[in-house]
């Protein structure tokens, strides 16, 4: 053993260079056996950990990109969903309206609200049709729940609807059951009420108030309101009746103008 180590020690450089040359020769000559083997060992020992790290980083990057793409897609989808939901609501409203029959001698013209004029409560609405579409002043305006108001001003492409919540707009109405007449009014302090109803008139909570057809503006039978409460003070000649409009005037959207067939 001592003999061997002495030889190795004395010829260390020669052995070192010789082995290096041998390795180079082996790698050069045996391109299908030694070279791939050494390449695989080198890859496994030196490159593999970093290749794995690179794969992990690139995976994370892909996940980040995918996440960003999905977020964008989610926003787009939610926008589409909102549009679809809105279209569905509109579809429902229009389908409900299909069952609506216009009063005799009237036809309906669908209109859209462009703007709503409010002072605490809505007073008037601007609609997207006017005299070009045969709209004239005092035509009744309804939606699928009942009477909304009447046309107050008309321009070629627009018209103003005076809503029932305008205190200057009074409608002649009657109790659907008892056929008693009265006037539907609105006051900012009291809300909607049924005026001019005699103290002995038959009226109960929940009764429907409809248009009477008197006055020449509104056709008879349009729903106006539901009786909310009735108060008859002793000695008074009129009953005090508070109403809930059948149309929620804060949520009006599609409206229909009733146009007389004679026009």
């Amino acid at each position, binding site marked *: 053993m001592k003999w061997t180590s002495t030889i190795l020690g004395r010829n*260390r*450089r020669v052995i*070192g*260079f010789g082995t*290096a040359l041998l*390795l*180079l020769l082996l*790698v*050069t000559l045996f*391109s299908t056996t030694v*070279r*791939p083997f*050494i*390449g*695989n060992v*080198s*890859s496994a020992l*030196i*490159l593999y*950990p*970093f*290749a794995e*790290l*690179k794969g992990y*980083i690139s995976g994370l990057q892909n996940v980040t990109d995918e996440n960003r793409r999905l977020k964008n897609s989610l926003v787009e989808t939610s926008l589409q969903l909102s549009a679809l939901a809105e279209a569905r609501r509109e579809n429902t409203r229009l389908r409900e309206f299909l069952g609506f029959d216009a009063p005799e001698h009237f036809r309906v013209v669908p209109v859209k609200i462009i703007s709503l004029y409010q002072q605490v409560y809505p007073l008037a609405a601007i609609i997207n049709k006017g005299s070009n579409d045969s709209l004239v002043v005092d035509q009744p305006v309804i939606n699928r729940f009942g009477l909304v108001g009447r046309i107050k001003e008309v321009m070629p492409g627009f018209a103003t609807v005076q809503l029932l919540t305008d205190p200057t707009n009074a409608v002649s109405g009657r109790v659907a059951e008892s056929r008693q007449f009265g006037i539907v009014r609105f006051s900012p302090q009291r809300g909607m009420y049924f005026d001019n109803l005699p103290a002995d008139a038959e009226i109960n909570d929940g009764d429907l108030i409809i248009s009477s057809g008197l006055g020449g503006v509104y056709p008879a039978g349009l729903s106006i309101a539901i009786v909310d409460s009735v108060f008859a003070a002793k000695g008074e000649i009129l009953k005090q009746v508070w109403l809930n409009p059948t149309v929620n005037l804060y949520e009006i959207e599609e409206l229909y103008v009733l146009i007389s067939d004679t026009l």
Partner: protein
Amino acid sequence: MRILPYLFYLYLLGLHVTILNDVTAIYGVTVDLAALLVILVALHKGDLTALWFALVVGIVVGSLRLDLMPWEMLILGAISLAIHQCSRRMNLESLTSRLLLLGGFLLLHKLTISLVLSTSDFALVLIRQVVPGTVYTLLFGWLFLLYRDGRLTWDKLKALF
């Protein structure tokens, strides 16, 4: 324990060829870290050590392209021996002389590998990759030599900013 720095260099090279090479590339111009490491080791270590380090570096770089493995081993081995001989016979005290040596052999390595690959548009490769790549690698070599000479320290870097 003497082998640890070389292992560190090899893993640094592994990190470079797998990840950093793409990150540090500027318009396709890359750092030739393999040649840089071999030259720096050959400048400061013995010839046998430098030769073996060069062969292993050649294997690591060549494992990505097996057809280039013997060429890389041969060229890097030859460069390591040549550098060692130069460092023994020449006065390499000044930074400029070492940089010239470094630049020359970096260029030689890139040139020979480009010739081995024998692309048809060699002139284009020379102008667009070999020369800029050599300059780019030389920049890192210059920084390393400055650091090794103690002319580039953390305190000096801090003073710059």
